[in-house]
């Protein structure tokens, strides 16, 4: 009678726990570099692949970017433009795709033509007449001058794939790129395995195999980093970061990203249309306090919209945005609002109450939204916070119902910030930028920059944009952003690229 009961529990535990455990992981550890991050792999298609295949250096874009965001040769060795509407990109003679076929101008042109129609790719914003190729070059004929074409060609959606990547219906069935690594296996939505490609035209990578695994819970990612189960872990939350910092054999690496956490403000709103109210809201925010509490780093408090890492667009001379509750009250009073005995504000019988939309894709945003709610409450302004899908912000922009949106804006989606700045402050507004706000001087300055204004003139135009935006606050900056990763000490020569153009692992090696 006692036998089954006595044996069952220990047998089960032994069977489940000890079975194959240690050997499998130890074996893997000796070969592959294990990358863990929050994002899921949905698709092989360039526009919807969310940059996995360029970051893993499977596919290349024509133009690359170094860690300072400067353009460098990618798949193209050099590029020239005869007029501002005709661009030629030269291809290397020894490049080949992972199926062994040579990288020809025709193949590149065919690959890029497919993405040029996809609305979500920045390439679709350019008026393209034709993309043609000959043996070793690709030619773009544009309908209008577009000086930032090379910068746009750093975007992952413009990665070049071999013709054999697509099936007859136009779906990508295999990612056959031309980079140092080739795809071994993709398991949607969780993992990608790649290995070094023998025919790579450059220096063979020191690390031969890479695996990427998607882990959605930040707690799980932190535990993996701390317990030697991953070599590079992206997207750690502040709480998890402390755990990782305390662990031996792991180092936190970080870089300031050209990303700003900001409040998008509806400029047509009866309350928020008044710049004095926007300024009052800005003065209500204790940015260093919020940065310390949420991002665990007071340096990340935004003193102006564009972070210092984009030096051309960051102006040290601007007066920093700081908290000033008395100043905020004066501004609200000036705008016609009267403070009631209970602390709230009223104008013509209407109470000042606003709503804010944000999304959980970046863990910091909901926490910041709560901090903003508390800061506004201190000033006497009620704020309803709605944490939902990120798409509610552009949807609210389109139907005009959005009041405030808290979002993270990347100012160098393509490596020249001008492209993003121009979109952010486009006169008709921008889904992830200004809403119902425009300024003729800003518009003129951006147009001049897009037409190629350089040197002192370019600097003058940039200053016009930056100053106007700082004064009018169509977007209220809250914090800058630091990208971090936990890196295991067995990895050497890891360089963090704040633009995430690639994860630069072909240049990394194992610690000797």
């Amino acid at each position: 009678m006692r036998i089954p009961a006595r044996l069952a529990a220990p047998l089960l535990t032994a069977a489940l726990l000890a079975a194959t455990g240690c050997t499998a992981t130890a074996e893997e550890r000796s070969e592959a570099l294990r990358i863990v991050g929050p994002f899921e792999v949905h698709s092989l298609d360039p526009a919807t692949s969310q940059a996995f295949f360029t970051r893993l250096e499977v596919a290349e874009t024509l133009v690359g970017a170094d860690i300072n965001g400067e353009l460098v040769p990618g798949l193209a060795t050099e590029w020239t433009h005869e007029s501002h509407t005709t661009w030629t990109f030269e291809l290397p003679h020894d490049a080949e795709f992972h199926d062994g076929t040579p990288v020809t101008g025709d193949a590149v042109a065919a690959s890029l033509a497919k993405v040029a129609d996809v609305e979500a790719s920045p390439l679709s914003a350019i008026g393209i007449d034709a993309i043609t190729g000959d043996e070793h070059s690709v030619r773009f004929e544009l309908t209008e001058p577009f000086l930032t074409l090379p910068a746009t060609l750093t975007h992952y959606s413009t990665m070049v794939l071999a013709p054999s990547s697509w099936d007859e219906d136009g779906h990508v069935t295999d990612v056959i790129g031309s980079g140092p690594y080739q795809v071994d296996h993709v398991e949607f939505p969780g993992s990608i395995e790649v290995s070094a490609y023998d025919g790579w035209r450059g220096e063979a990578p020191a690390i031969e195999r890479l695996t990427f695994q998607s882990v959605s819970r930040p707690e799980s990612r932190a535990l993996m980093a701390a317990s030697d189960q991953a070599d590079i872990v992206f997207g750690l939350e502040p709480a998890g970061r402390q755990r990782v910092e305390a662990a031996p054999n792991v180092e936190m690496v970080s870089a300031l990203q050209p990303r700003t956490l900001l409040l998008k403000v509806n400029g047509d709103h009866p309350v928020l249309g008044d710049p004095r109210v926007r300024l009052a809201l800005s003065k209500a925010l204790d940015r260093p306090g919020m940065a310390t509490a949420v991002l665990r780093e007071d340096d990340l408090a935004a003193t102006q919209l564009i972070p210092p890492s984009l030096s051309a667009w960051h102006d040290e001379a601007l007066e920093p945005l700081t908290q000033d509750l008395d100043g905020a009250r004066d501004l609200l009073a000036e705008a016609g609002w009267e403070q009631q005995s209970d602390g709230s504000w009223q104008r013509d019988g209407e109470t000042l109450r606003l709503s804010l939309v944000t999304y959980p894709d970046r863990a910091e945003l909901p926490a910041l939204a709560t901090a903003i709610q508390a800061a506004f409450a201190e000033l006497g302004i009620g704020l309803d916070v709605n944490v939902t899908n990120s798409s509610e912000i552009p949807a609210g922009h389109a139907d005009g119902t959005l009041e405030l949106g808290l979002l993270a804006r990347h100012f160098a989606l393509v490596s020249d910030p001008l492209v993003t700045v121009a979109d952010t402050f486009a006169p008709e507004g921008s889904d992830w930028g200004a809403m119902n706000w425009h300024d003729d001087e800003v518009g003129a300055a951006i147009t001049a920059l897009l037409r190629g204004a350089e040197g002192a003139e370019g600097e003058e135009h940039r200053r016009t944009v930056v100053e106007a935006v700082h004064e009018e606050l169509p977007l209220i900056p809250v914090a800058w952003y630091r990208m971090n990763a936990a890196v295991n000490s067995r990895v050497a020569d890891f360089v963090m690229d704040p633009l995430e153009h690639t994860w630069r692992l072909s240049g990394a090696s194992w610690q000797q």
Partner: protein
Amino acid sequence: MTGIRRTGEVLLKRSGQALGVALAVSILCFVVVQRLPGDVSYRIAAGRYGYDLVDNAAAAAVAAELGLDRPAWQQFGSWLAALAQGDLGRSLVTSRPVGEELAFYLLGTLQLTGAALLVAILIGGSVGVLAARHPGSLVDHLATTWVASVRALPPFLLGLLLVLVFSVQLGWLPAVGHGNSTSLVLPAMTLGLGLSGLVARVTRETVINVWSSSYVQFAHTRGIRERLVLLRHVLRNSAVVLVPYLGAQAILLIEGVIVVESLFAWQGLGHALVHAVFWRDIPMLQATALALALLVVSLNTVVDLIVLRLDPRPRRAGALA
């Protein structure tokens, strides 16, 4: 003969039920998605392109491509027509056939729930039998404490505790993952341990009842060895009560699966369902809900069939009639 006829009856009844449930779930699911707040095309574009690149143009392109501007009944009609031909459609986010994705996630969930049930039966069953043998003893009290503690711990916390002990401290098992045999252990333990408390409780009560029954007393009187009495009489008779109970619990496991799958990055239906809702991936959502509903019906069918095998009484009743 009667056994086969009864099996046939069960299968026929359950197939009818499956059809009804499938239709009801599909309609309900479609109505619910249509009533959810937010614009569907924006959500889908966000799932496809990532939030940095979702804008009005991308959403408009998605709506045009997928025909989302058609009236809802037309969209539902075409989905149903395709389903009747065995075509679940393509995912709106990944553009891959839903059938393939569903098979992958379903396998993941079946592996996880199967392993979790095994853990629950082995641990819960053993604890229950032990406690039942000595009611009121220290072992019984310990068992009660076990039941209360595993039941009180939410799966998320229990999972993290198991990761801390077995993965971080001892380094025996991978914390998360999907695909190799070892990565199944922790999520299965999390779900299984949570369930084992109730299994232990029910086992204890049932075994005590059966043990004190006249046929077991009689078996003892006949001088049959204790171990044989337990195996032949007590366990089999207890199983008639336990199997339907476990069937009901397995259905409840689906709820825990959602949390546990996301904590351990285990790819299963729960994970897929949450993402499909978040991105308004309607075909994927419909298919996942359908699969879960049919899973419940299949589980009930399996329980019916096992009970039919274990319990001879209805068969005899059929033979006598």
